[in-house]
Each structure stands twice: as structure tokens, then as C-alpha cells.
């Protein structure tokens, strides 16, 4: 899948590849050590820069899940 910025594409692909394998083979099997963190860091920096250039402000303050803002489906019965 594409990144929002072509400049970050290479970093995204490297990170995604690492993450997918880690998620399936490690995280879901109980490991809590995120071995892809260094790749995520450089990828995130690239995306952060791209968003700034494109005028998209969303880095903070958009959390909904797990907060009071999260909408919940009505309970049946």
C-alpha cells in the first residue's frame, strides 16, 4: 500500500515487512519486545515531515478509542 508521501515509501515498506512478521510470529504468540521500533522511528519521522508540508495537523489530540469520546453500540437486551 502507498504512503501519503512517495518519499516515505521505502521506509514504510521496510517497516511494514518487519512489523507484519513480528506481529504474527512474535506479538500474537506472547512476545512483548517490539523489534521493529528503530525502523518505525525513521519511518515516523518521514511521515511527520510530510504531514507538516501538506498542512495536515493530527499528531496529537485525536485519540478517541478508550476515551470518553468513544461511541459505544447500544447493548442488546
Amino acid at each position, binding site marked *: *500500500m502507498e504512503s501519503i508521501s512517495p518519499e516515505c515509501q521505502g521506509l514504510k515498506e521496510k517497516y511494514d515487512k518487519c512489523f507484519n512478521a513480528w506481529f504474527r510470529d512474535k*506479538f*500474537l504468540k506472547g512476545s*512483548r519486545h517490539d523489534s521493529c521500533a528503530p525502523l518505525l522511528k525513521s519511518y515516523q519521522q518521514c*511521515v511527520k515531515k510530510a504531514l507538516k508540508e501538506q498542512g495536515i495537523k*493530527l499528531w496529537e489530540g485525536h485519540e478517541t478509542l478508550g476515551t470518553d469520546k468513544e461511541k*459505544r*453500540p447500544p447493548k442488546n437486551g
Partner: protein
Amino acid sequence: MKFFSCVHQFKFTWDQVAGCYWNRYPNPNSTHVLSEDVISRHIGKDGCLYSTRLVTKTNSLPKWGEKFVPGGTKHVHVIEESIINPKKKTMITYTKNIGLTKVMSIEERCEYCPSESNPAQTECQKSAWIDSGLPAVGFAISNFGYQRFKRNAAKASEGFEFVLNTFYGVTPEATARSAASKAVMLKKEKFKETAEKAKDLAKSKAAAVLVTKA
């Protein structure tokens, strides 16, 4: 505010569905998804994986709604948050658009867990809230959004299912289906073979008749 909800059953285990969630784009039904990026991700003290992603989608408002969109924005940004609990086997995803929220806001919550009736399968409870803050036309817009969401909800699950099939191969049900269709094909082929034989026989008989006549 309009509310929509549905349940979709995936014929795959929870581990397979969760493992494939990050790869569900692109699929044949996701041509409206332009990009996706990880904004933040960490493992919480509770052992859950917390992720926030930014997804860009094409903005397809009806012609009459376009005039309410400043500068005729062609795409919309969507924030997708998720919490995955590998011990309890639950995955909650929460998606909302961050641009054009006054025109139309859609918040979608999906909860994936092993199906109670069949733990080898995964149930996804999808809920969505659609709203518009525009005076006068707000009702029409949220109604449009609701209808579109309802139409696309099944398509989205089908797209995800397509990726699951590609990743993990066919499900036992699909294997049974394909075996059944193979049997039909074989029958058809046999029938064709018999038909060909009959044709050849008829031809040779006709030739024999011709030979005798000559």
C-alpha cells in the same frame, strides 16, 4: 445522527484475522483507499498493542453535496485507532474522518473476537454513527452517508475476506465448495467425452453407410 450496525462472520481464526488486518488494503473493493501510514504504535502496560494510522480515501460526495466542500477537496483523511489484546483475543478498531467533519462525520467501531458458536471463526461487530453539522441539508447528507455506508459495509468485509483467502489459502468450506464444483466439472467433461464418442461413432457409422453405398 444516524446509527448503523451489523455483524460479519469471517471463516478464519481470530489470529488469522488480526494478523491480516494490517494488510487488508489493497483489495478489489478498496480502490477508494489511496494511502495508509502508521502515525503511532506502542505496547501498553496491559500488554495490548495500541496503533494509530492515517488513511487517505477519495472523497465521493454526490454532486449536490460538492458545493459544501471547501475548495472541492478530492480526498478525505481518516484516523484509524486500534487496540489489540492477544491474550483475550479481542481487537477493537475505531475509525473517523478528520477532515470535512462539518459536512459529514462518520465514526466506525469494529470489535473482532472469536465466534461463540464456532471458535475457529471470527465475529466482527460493526457499528457506525453518521452525522452532518450543516444546516438545512444536514439531514439529507447524513441520510446519504448512511445509505452509502450500509451499501459498502458488506463490500469492505468481502474485500478483507479476499485478502484472508489470498494469505491463508482457502477455508475448509471453500475447499468443499471447490471440490463440489470440480465434481460438476468432471461430470460435464465426462458428458462431453461421451458426447464426443457418440459423435465419432455416428460419424464412423455414417462413413460406413457411405462406404457401403459406394
